[in-house]
């Protein structure tokens, strides 16, 4: 099983929780502290992220970048393609 991770731009995030709801792994949750805009922001709180990109797709603020464990460079490249065009 591929594993992945996400990076949330915490100063961009507005804490809408859409990503959290869309994560099949329930890997995300809201922070307790607030960012400079006054929002609690999304963060990865479990390490079971598969890099499925669901959260990123629904994020209105493009605050999420998704990374994945490459099986091989080639596969990874594909992965990118699929991700973008799937």
């Amino acid at each position: 099983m591929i594993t992945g991770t996400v990076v949330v731009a915490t100063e961009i995030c507005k804490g809408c929780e859409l990503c959290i709801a869309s994560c099949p792994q329930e890997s995300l949750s809201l922070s307790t502290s607030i960012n400079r805009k006054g929002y609690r922001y999304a963060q990865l709180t479990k390490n079971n992220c598969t890099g499925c990109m669901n959260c990123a797709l629904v994020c209105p603020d493009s605050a999420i970048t998704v990374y994945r464990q490459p099986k091989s460079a080639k596969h990874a490249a594909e992965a990118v393609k699929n991700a973008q065009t799937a």
Partner: protein
Amino acid sequence: MVQNHEIIIAGFGGQGVLSMGQIIAYSAMKEGKEISWMPAYGPEMRGGTANCMVIVSSNRVSSPIVTTFDSGIILNQPSLDKFADKIKPGGLLLCEESTIITPCKRDDLEMLMIPATATATNMGKKQIANMILLGAFLERRPIVSLENVLKALREVLPERHHHLIPMNEEALHLGQKFAAEYVDHASV
């Protein structure tokens, strides 16, 4: 002689900045004073910054727009950065503690950091932080009486929210207490 008090109240939308100003204005009107309340907000519907200028005066308010203030009640960093210099020397500057990262450097002001949000959260109602700040403000600048503020609340709040009035009252008192016991930065 003309008595005039010019206040700026500023923070994020949703922090109750505008209503705080309205309550002051309303109570002052009840006391027969002349008043004006002038709001300003950004393009955002939620979040974003908001502020209002409130003028309470013994005479008809000529210009509702002023550039310097007797008091400032500040609920976030951007607002502090924007208005810190606009408080008249010797004026009052009230800040909501948790939202301020870099406090104002001026030493010619009566400056209070009030942990309103923290306290309100403990009380179980975050939204009530603005009442704590209002209480603190009135302790230092009693331009309207607490009684009238409470009367105002009763008249302004729709019936269905009247059960919240006791909590608001408690918040006001807490705010007064903070301000009363507060050791001013300036005087440190």
